[in-house]
């Protein structure tokens, strides 16, 4: 990612968005202009966070959306080889530098010298190899296994050099190593003891109650300068959205994630708290099996895509805290987002035209939905069925239980609701969900041209050519793919006014890419 989101919008694109979004839609806070005080040390950052879970584990192989693991483990205790900065640039972190051999098949990472773990041991290449290997191999249970699947071999060359051999060239390989599962822990005999939570990050864990609370204390010997400003970081799990809102409004915590978008507007007038939001890569999807009738007919898919009123969805489901999407997963925050791809409008007539072409007028389909897919998924499905009715399509919304949604409904039923966090690179997103052999190909879409382009683009180093290739792939997914992507959802959070940060905010995830413990400070 070349830069933060605001600068990535071209003027033309901005005009179009401004025209299409309703007047009340919230834009990004303008955080660039005002002069800011220099960061200073001290204080305890208390984060009230959604998504803690009493079943969470310190093993990064199982890190899902647990807030303590994301904000505390990834954000405070550990470092990665590389990190994506607030402004979206890829920077070396534990690596001092990295380079790819021509063809991008062999990658060499030189480690920073003098980096120590919280127990005083020095970081070596063996720690890196063990930490990455933890996710690889036939016995791996890791959620990150598909991310590291392209690695053929990792070896250390001396104490400060790690060499990755890939199965095939991948120009974006370094980005993958910024993934939050791929943190570097202290290894002994080729294994990392994750329950010891010893990392190279700016904080160490001092108190921990499973799924409920974590207290982290700053290390005085943190290798990174100009980072980790707080004396302590406390993460408090607050699942109930009203409790979360109250906690930040009464000053019980300094910042909350996942603000209540229905009431956040009322909070904006207050001077003691600040509402912030970022449009990242997070998007809501409705995948359909492209090998199952009637979805195997591209005209049916197009009819269903034309039958979505995206603007109404952003307005009613997201209360304006999001942006309309175009049936493809690459977001404006991504590097090779193709702004020239025409936005698909809500056009019941065109939907009817495609249905007629498919000879399937009066189409009736079941859409399986539960709020486990994302908050508001059921409402989205019901709203969609109303919109589609105007195109003569009957969408029967089947309510599914939240419990077990990912194992029993998603990838099992032909037309469902789903959500994706999005990925910092195009190849990462495409190869995990849209490639023919992708582990999470929830549409069973197998487009030969797309798959050919994906392999070519992956090892292509010429920027202009890549942009053209990824643009073509976005068009293919949008026009031929089996997924309706109505909208990108903003990350919305609320902080106390005395808590502050630099001029940019990461668009990868909420709270500055989960790194607020390291990057923010008290004014």
């Amino acid at each position, binding site marked *: 990612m070349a830069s933060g989101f605001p600068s990535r919008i071209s003027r033309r694109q901005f005009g179009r968005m401004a025209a299409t979004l309703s007047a009340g839609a919230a834009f990004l806070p303008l955080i660039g202009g005002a002069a800011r005080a220099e960061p200073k040390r001290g204080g305890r950052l208390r984060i009230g966070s959604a998504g803690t879970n009493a079943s969470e584990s310190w093993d990064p192989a*199982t890190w899902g959306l647990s807030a303590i693991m994301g904000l505390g483990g990834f954000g405070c205790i550990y470092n990665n080889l590389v990190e994506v900065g607030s402004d979206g640039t890829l920077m070396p972190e534990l690596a001092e530098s990295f380079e790819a051999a021509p063809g991008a098949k062999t990658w060499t990472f030189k480690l920073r010298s003098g980096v120590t773990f919280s127990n005083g041991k020095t970081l070596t290449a063996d720690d890196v190899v063990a930490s990455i290997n933890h996710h690889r191999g036939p016995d791996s249970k890791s959620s990150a296994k598909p991310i590291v699947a392209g690695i053929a071999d990792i070896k250390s060359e001396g104490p400060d050099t790690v060499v990755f051999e890939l199965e095939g060239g991948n120009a974006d390989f370094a980005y993958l190593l910024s993934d939050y599962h791929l943190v570097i822990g202290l290894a002994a005999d080729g294994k990392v003891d994750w329950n010891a939570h010893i990392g190279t990050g700016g904080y160490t864990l001092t108190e921990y109650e499973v799924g409920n609370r974590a207290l982290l204390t700053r290390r005085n010997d943190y290798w990174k300068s100009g980072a980790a400003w707080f004396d302590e970081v406390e993460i408090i799990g607050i699942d109930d959205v009203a409790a979360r809102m*109250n*906690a930040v409004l009464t000053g019980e915590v300094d910042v909350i994630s996942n603000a209540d978008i229905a009431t956040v507007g009322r909070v904006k007038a207050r001077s003691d708290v600040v509402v912030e939001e970022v449009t990242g890569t997070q998007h809501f999807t409705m995948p359909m099996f492209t090998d199952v009738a009637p979805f195997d007919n591209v005209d049916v898919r197009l009819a269903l895509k034309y039958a979505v009123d995206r603007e109404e969805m952003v307005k009613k489901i997201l209360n304006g805290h999001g942006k309309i999407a175009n049936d493809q997963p690459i977001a404006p925050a991504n590097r090779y987002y193709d702004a020239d791809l025409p936005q698909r409008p809500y056009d019941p007539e065109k939907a009817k035209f495609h249905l007629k072409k498919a000879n399937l007028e009066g189409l009736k389909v079941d859409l399986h939905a539960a709020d486990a897919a994302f908050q508001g998924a059921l409402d989205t499905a019901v709203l969609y069925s109303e919109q589609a009715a105007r195109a003569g399509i009957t969408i029967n919304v089947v309510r599914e239980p939240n419990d077990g949604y990912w194992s029993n409904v998603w990838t099992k039923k032909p037309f469902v609701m789903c959500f994706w966090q999005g990925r910092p690179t195009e190849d990462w997103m495409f190869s995990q969900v849209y490639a023919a052999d992708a582990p999470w190909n929830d549409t069973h879409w197998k487009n030969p041209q797309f798959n050919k382009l994906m392999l070519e683009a992956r090892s292509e180093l010429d920027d202009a050519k890549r942009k053209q290739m990824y643009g073509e792939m976005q068009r293919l997914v949008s026009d031929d793919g089996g997924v309706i992507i109505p909208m990108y959802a903003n990350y919305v959070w609320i902080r106390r006014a005395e808590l502050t940060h630099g001029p940019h905010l990461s668009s990868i995830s909420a709270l500055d890419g989960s790194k607020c413990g390291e990057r923010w400070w008290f004014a």
Partner: protein
Amino acid sequence: MTGIARLVLQRLGLGLVTLLIVSVLIFWSVELLPGDAAQEILGQSATPETVAALRHQLNLDQPPMTRYTHWLQAMAHGDFGTSIANGLPVSKLISERLGNTLFLAAFAGIIAVPLALMLGILAALLRNSLFDRAASIFTLTAISFPEFFVAYILILFLSVKLGLFPSISNITPSTDFAERIYRSFLPALALTLAITAHIMRMTRAALINLFSLPYIEMARLKGASQGRVVMVHALRNALAPIVNVVVLNLAYLVTGVVIVEVVFVYPGFGRLLVDSVSKRDVPVVQAICLIISMTYILLNLFADIVSIVSNPRLMHAK
């Protein structure tokens, strides 16, 4: 007294059998839920290979009967086992939260039970008076609203508007006692409002029932004071139904407070149970449910003993 001792032993023995049956039911209920721990832990990011690998690591690929027997064997040796989801000892996961839950239950109980009894007695004495009606209306209104609504109302007025109490009760092991009381006050109040009506109405009904009996009239006629009539003559005979309803409500305080926990972010074990069920974490679910069953068994036993002791006729069963 040996009769009582025998009864207690007998009931404890039956309690153990009940626990065994409960454990079988829980195990099979969790088995019947769709999906297993491996799928639930990996969630959306599961692939067939990673699920298989995780299943193997967690011994979930063994037949259910084998897993249950293993669990039972360990349990018989006093070992609660380790959590499937995070590998921590179950006893460690539960002990802290169990302590918090019991603390909150005790706190709410200490406020609610005397308050409800007092209101009940007064209401019975001042039957159909303004006080009686007001007390009934207030407590019945409080119990009619769902708990979370009462909780939000309390937060809105006592925390957000007046700033008297914190809106979240995030107590930690290092929180001292006074701070604990202060931070748990709102959840305890919410729970008090939830159970007061039940106990109060039962006390009132039981007493009013007795007041119409000849022996109370006799006591009044012989000139016993109002207090003596209630405390010595009436209350003793009303004890059995009152203790039963008090115990039922105390058991509820231990087991049914998930919603209040969530709203006040109180670290009790209700949420642990919900999370564990959703992750199919059988050892944790088992341990918590057994504790809950045990609470019910012991409290009921206690209520029965009080009933029997307060009514000697029951001691000499035919």
